[in-house]
C-alpha cells in the first residue's frame, strides 16, 4: 500500500543520498584502501536504495529510476543527516558513524517486519551495514587517537553532525499507521546511544552542539545541499526523457 511505499522511500532515499555522496570519494580518498572501502560502502548503500525504491515503486508502477531521477526535491524523503556534505575525511567518518550505527539498529529490527519484502531487504542489508559500522568505528578511534590534528578534526566533525542526529529518531505519524511493518524510530535511540557511548568512551570523545536542527526531510523539507546533489545526480537522465541506458 501507499504507506509501506512511503516508508520504503524514507529508507531508500537515505541510502541513495548517502551513496551518492560517498561515490565522490572514489579516486579521491586518503589512500587506495579507502577508495575501495568507501566505494564498497557506497555500492552496498546503492544496492539497498535500489531494492527499496524498486519496492516503493511497485505501489504505483514507477521504476527505481523514475523515483531516483524524476522526483523533485520536495518529493524526496531523506533525513538531513544523510544530506550533510562530505567535508573532510573526518566529517565523512562522523556522518558514517552516526548513519551506520543508526542503520544497523534499524535493519536489525526490520528483519522482523511483517512485510516480507522489507524483512528480506533488511536481512541482507544488516550484514553489510555491520561492516560499515565497523569501518566507521575503527576510523573514529584512529582519528580521535591519532595526531593532534586528526583528533581536533574528529571532534569538530562530530560536533558538526550532531545537530542532525535527533531527526533520525522522531516518530512521524506514518509510523503509527505501520505497526509491525515499520520500526519505530524512537525505540532506536537507546541502543544507538549505547553503542556510541562505548565508542566515545574508548576514543575519549564527547560530541556536543548547542543546536538541534529542525529537520523535516520526511515531509520533503531538505537541507540546502540536496538541491545541488540532485541537480548533479539527475542532469544527464533529465536531458534525455524516455531514453534507456
Amino acid at each position: 500500500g501507499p504507506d509501506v511505499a512511503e516508508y520504503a522511500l524514507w529508507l531508500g532515499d537515505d541510502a541513495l543520498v548517502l551513496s551518492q555522496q560517498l561515490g565522490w570519494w572514489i579516486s579521491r580518498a586518503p589512500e587506495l584502501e579507502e577508495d575501495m572501502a568507501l566505494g564498497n560502502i557506497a555500492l552496498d548503500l546503492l544496492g539497498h536504495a535500489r531494492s527499496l525504491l524498486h519496492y516503493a515503486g511497485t505501489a504505483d508502477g514507477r521504476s527505481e529510476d523514475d523515483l531516483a531521477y524524476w522526483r523533485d526535491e520536495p518529493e524526496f524523503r531523506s533525513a538531513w543527516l544523510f544530506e550533510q556534505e562530505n567535508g573532510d575525511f573526518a566529517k565523512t567518518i562522523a556522518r558514517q558513524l552516526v548513519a551506520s550505527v543508526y542503520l544497523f539498529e534499524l535493519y536489525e529490527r526490520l528483519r522482523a517486519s511483517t512485510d516480507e519484502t522489507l524483512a528480506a531487504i533488511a536481512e541482507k542489508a544488516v550484514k553489510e551495514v555491520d561492516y560499515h559500522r565497523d569501518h566507521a568505528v575503527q576510523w573514529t578511534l584512529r582519528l580521535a587517537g591519532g595526531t593532534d590534528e586528526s583528533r581536533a578534526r574528529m571532534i569538530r566533525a562530530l560536533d558538526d553532525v550532531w545537530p542532525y542526529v535527533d531527526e533520525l529518531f522522531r516518530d512521524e505519524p506514518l509510523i503509527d499507521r505501520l505497526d509491525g511493518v515499520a520500526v519505530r524510530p524512537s525505540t532506536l535511540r537507546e541502543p544507538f546511544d549505547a553503542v556510541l557511548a562505548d565508542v566515545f568512551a574508548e576514543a575519549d570523545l564527547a560530541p556536543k552542539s548547542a543546536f538541534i536542527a529542525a529537520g523535516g526531510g520526511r515531509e520533503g523539507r531538505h537541507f540546502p545541499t540536496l538541491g545541488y546533489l540532485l541537480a548533479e545526480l539527475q542532469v544527464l537522465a533529465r536531458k534525455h526523457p524516455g531514453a534507456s541506458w
Partner: protein
Amino acid sequence: MTTTPEQAQFDALIAADGRIEPRDWMPEAYRKTLVRQISQHAHSEIIGMQPEANWITRAPSLKRKAILMAKVQDEAGHGLYLYSAAQTLGTPRDEMTEALIAGKAKYSSIFNYPTPTWADMGAIGWLVDGAAICNQVPLCRASYGPYGRAMVRICKEESFHQRQGFEILLTLMQGTDEQRRMAQDAVDRWYWPALQMFGPPDDQSPNSAQSMAWNIKRFTNDELRQRFVGMLVPQAEVLGVTLPDPKLRWNDETQQYDMSEIDWTEFFEVLAGRGPMNAERLRRRREAHEDGAWVREAAAEYARKRGSLSLS
C-alpha cells in the same frame, strides 16, 4: 665475461619458461624493467580511475551507476595488487606514488584524454579495456611470478569491464538518435588512441626484444594491435558503429587487416605533456594524496601508540 652460477640458473629458468619468484636471484636490468613496467601499470590503473569517476555522480540510471562504481573501485584494487607485486621487487609503494605525483613516472597516455559524455564510459570499456586485455592476457604468463598472478586476477575483471562497455554502447546504439550520435562520437574519439596503446610500430620499439627474451612480453606491438583490430571488427558490426578508418579491411593475402597508417604525431604530443588532461590528472592525484596526508599520519600514529601499548 663469464656467466655467474646465479645468472646461469636464471637463464635456465627463463629458457624453460619457468617462473622467477621474489627471493630468486635476478639480473638488475630484469628487476629494473619489471619495476618500471609494473609501477607504470599500477599508475595507469590509479590515474585511469579519474576519467570514469567523472561520471559516477551523474550516471543516467542506478544500475549503470552501480556498475561504474564497482568498475572504478576494481581499478583501485588492480592498482593495489600491482603496487604489491612491484613491492616484492624492493620498491615501496610510497616511493612509486611520490614519483607519480612528481611527474617522474609514466602511466598510459590514453588516460590523458577527457570523458565529455556518458558514451565515453562505453568506449573506454570496449576499446581501452579491450586493448588492455590484448596487452595483458599474455602477461598472465609473464616470467615474474607475482606479476603473472596479479595479471590473472586483473584480466578476469577487465574482460568483465569490456563486456560492460560493449553493453553501454549497444544500449546507446539501440536508443534515440542523440544517443546513437553520442556513441559513434565516442568511438571516433577513442579508436585511434586505443590502437596507440600497443606502442610504436615494431621497427621503432627498441625495448621490446629484451622484454620478449625475458618472457615478460610475448608478442610484438604490431601483433597485438592486429589481434585487437581483429576482435573489434565483428563487434563493431553487432554494435552498428563505424570504426573511423576508411582503409580498414580484411586482406586475404596477408591474412590480416589493412589499416590506415597511424598518425603518431598526436600520440607523441600527448606523451610530451601536451594532451588535454595531463596536467589535471597529476594535479588531482597530488591533491588527493596531500589532502589525505593527515589521515595517513593519524592512522600511523594510532598504530604506533597501540603497538607500544600492547608491548608495555
